[in-house]
């Protein structure tokens, strides 16, 4: 593998890692902070108010 090809592979895997981790973060915030399912809403109620999320 040439140095250029190796650098390209590393850049691509880095970008994929960033995209995957950003998606995980967004999913955690959406599920814990915004999904309106009753059990989730009730359990996360005080946190959602204190975090400034739209709650009800």
């Amino acid at each position, binding site marked *: 593998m040439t140095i250029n090809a190796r650098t390209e592979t590393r*850049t691509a*895997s*880095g*970008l994929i*890692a*960033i*995209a*995957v*981790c*950003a998606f*995980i*973060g*967004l*999913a*955690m*915030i959406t599920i*814990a*902070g*915004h999904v*309106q399912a009753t059990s989730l809403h009730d*359990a*996360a109620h*005080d*946190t*959602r*108010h*204190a*975090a*400034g*999320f*739209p*709650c*009800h």
Partner: protein
Amino acid sequence: MLTRIVTSALFAGFAAGLIAAALQLVFVQPLLLHAEHYESGRLVHFGAQKASDAHVDTGGIDWHRDGLSFLFTTLIYTGYAFLLVSAMAAASMRGISVRAKTGLVWGLAGFLAVHFAPAVGLPPELPGAAAADVGVRQIWWFATAAATAVGLGLLAFGHGWMPWMAGAILIAAPHVIGAPHPLNLTGPAPPELAAGFATRALGVGLVAWALLGLFSAWFWEREARHAENLPQTA
């Protein structure tokens, strides 16, 4: 890269989340519980014959309820950490150095994006406060946080007037468009409580995000040193 982001985000997010949860419990929760007395009608402020007592017994620690708050606050800050460290990783790939000390600036930018900018249109709400449809508010919240984050990124890392102008427009746009507001204001709690609640919620967010930025950058830098010391396997 994946391991480095995940490790940094988990440690930093969990630590900042625990501190945020503790601060919320001490400073924000008493006002929230006080407001619930007005929401339930146990206390009446507007139109009452007798002035409301400013000091009410809101009970002690409720292990079940407060335990869930700890759990969800740490989850949310871990989610924030995943986004923040991903942004730090993207900056590192572009040759921008991320050091523990500059983490503070990253954290303050995060606070502006997900706490302060959304709060300008939709201040942190007391239970029972009048508000527009929750779905519409959530769309405005996400759009404002995203536009502010991208706008701040353009201001910080853009070169020349074009990215700076685009950044400023992105930050201003949600507020020019305006947040969704209710048709009638029917909140039952005294305005003094609402003001205190909003300010304290933002204050806790500021401290937690400053720490989240510091922790994230510190772990990011530490993991980089760790990776350099390991023999290359690929």
